[in-house]
């Protein structure tokens, strides 16, 4: 029973218990809080599995953004309305049996074939120098498989657009002005955020960090500014807001098409690959930050159909 195994056992069992407790809660408010605690513990356990980039992102997006989205939409659905009872007993028993069997089969298969084939790790590390970044995960996302990330930013853009235009509430609620303490906090935290986000984009090149973590942080800043006093009293024009949503994606697509000149779609010459990767990383971070902020505003019900833009 080596100490590492002990720590891993404690962490994984507590993760499992937390998941059970989250699903046992009776009111939506408690379920969301349990889910955020589960997300934090999950981020911690990913450190134990040599995934620092993922634990950064999960800590920012799991309890952070998803928790904020859930809590914001709870304002409209009601914190303490208890959940209706689940389906009838036979159906519940059948579902538990089915999932149990699948779980047992998958666990047995995982236990049985736990030896690791050669995989693509050596290949990824071997091409790292030409990929323009010393952090293998940034190289995978932005250089080896940049095409995936382009489509994935598209997914985020479509989700934000749908929330903004199609799922906007009919009447939307106004936001109560925050107290003095929160305004002071906001004035102190905003410069710090604006310093950390570019740092996170920059450090992505050679240490855990990068576009996705910076984007999640940027959306944190966006959520804080939405909760705080509105610095811009005017209504953000619907067109301007929609264009800013797509800004990150436009930048990414322009860079992708621009590299046709060097040979192929999304191919960076090895010499200046790091420069291109930085450009794309900042556009990804920008796009993720704005889209997640607009989604938070949509979930909280502050975008309304009649009036253009934010209330």
């Amino acid at each position: 029973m080596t100490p590492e195994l002990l720590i891993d056992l404690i962490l994984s069992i507590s993760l499992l218990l937390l998941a059970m407790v989250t699903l046992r809660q009776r009111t939506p408010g408690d379920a969301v809080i349990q889910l955020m605690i589960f997300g934090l513990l999950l981020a911690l356990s990913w450190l134990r599995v040599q995934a620092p980039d993922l634990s950064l992102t999960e800590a920012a997006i799991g309890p952070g953004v998803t928790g904020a989205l859930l809590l914001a939409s709870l304002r409209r659905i009601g914190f303490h309305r208890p959940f209706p009872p689940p389906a009838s007993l036979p159906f519940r028993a059948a579902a538990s049996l089915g999932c149990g069997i699948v779980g047992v089969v998958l666990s047995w298969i995982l236990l049985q074939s736990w030896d690791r084939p050669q995989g693509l790790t050596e290949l990824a590390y071997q091409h790292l120098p030409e990929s323009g970044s010393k952090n293998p995960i940034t190289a995978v996302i932005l250089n080896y498989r940049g095409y995936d990330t382009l489509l994935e930013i598209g997914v985020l853009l479509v989700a934000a657009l749908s929330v903004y235009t199609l799922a906007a509430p009919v009447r939307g609620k106004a936001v109560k002005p925050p107290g003095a303490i929160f305004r002071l906090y906001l004035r102190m935290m905003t410069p710090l955020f604006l310093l950390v986000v570019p740092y996170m984009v920059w450090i992505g090149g050679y240490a855990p960090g990068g576009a996705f973590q910076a984007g999640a942080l940027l959306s944190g800043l966006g959520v804080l500014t939405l909760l705080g006093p509105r610095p811009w009293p005017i209504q953000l024009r619907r067109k301007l807001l929609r264009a800013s949503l797509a800004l990150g994606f436009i930048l990414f697509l322009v860079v992708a098409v621009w590299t046709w000149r060097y040979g192929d779609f999304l191919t960076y010459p090895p010499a200046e690959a790091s420069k291109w990767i930085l450009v794309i990383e900042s556009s990804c971070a920008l796009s993720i930050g704005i889209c997640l902020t607009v989604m938070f505003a949509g979930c909280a019900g502050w975008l309304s159909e009649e009036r253009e833009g934010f209330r």
Partner: protein
Amino acid sequence: MILLIWLSNLFLTLGALFFISSVTGLLRFPDTLCRMHALAKADNLALGCVILGVVLRQDEFFAVGKLFLIWGVTLLSSATSGFLLARRIRRGMQLREALKK
């Protein structure tokens, strides 16, 4: 050098003890406001001790700066969120008393 290692171990255990005390406070105190009080105080102190313990083991200056930044931001945000939560809870209690009358 041994003194530094011994000192950081001391701070780390101290921090762990403070964490345990804050959790017992969380579980034992009767109503929300008291529990929040215990949490805010003990957690920040415990985090301070842990960070001091870790700082003593660091060698490069930049990491030390980042660690203290973590502590500062945690202090700031836990104070603000504590205040906002407490205000909300007190308004809830006043509302309940008004309804009772």
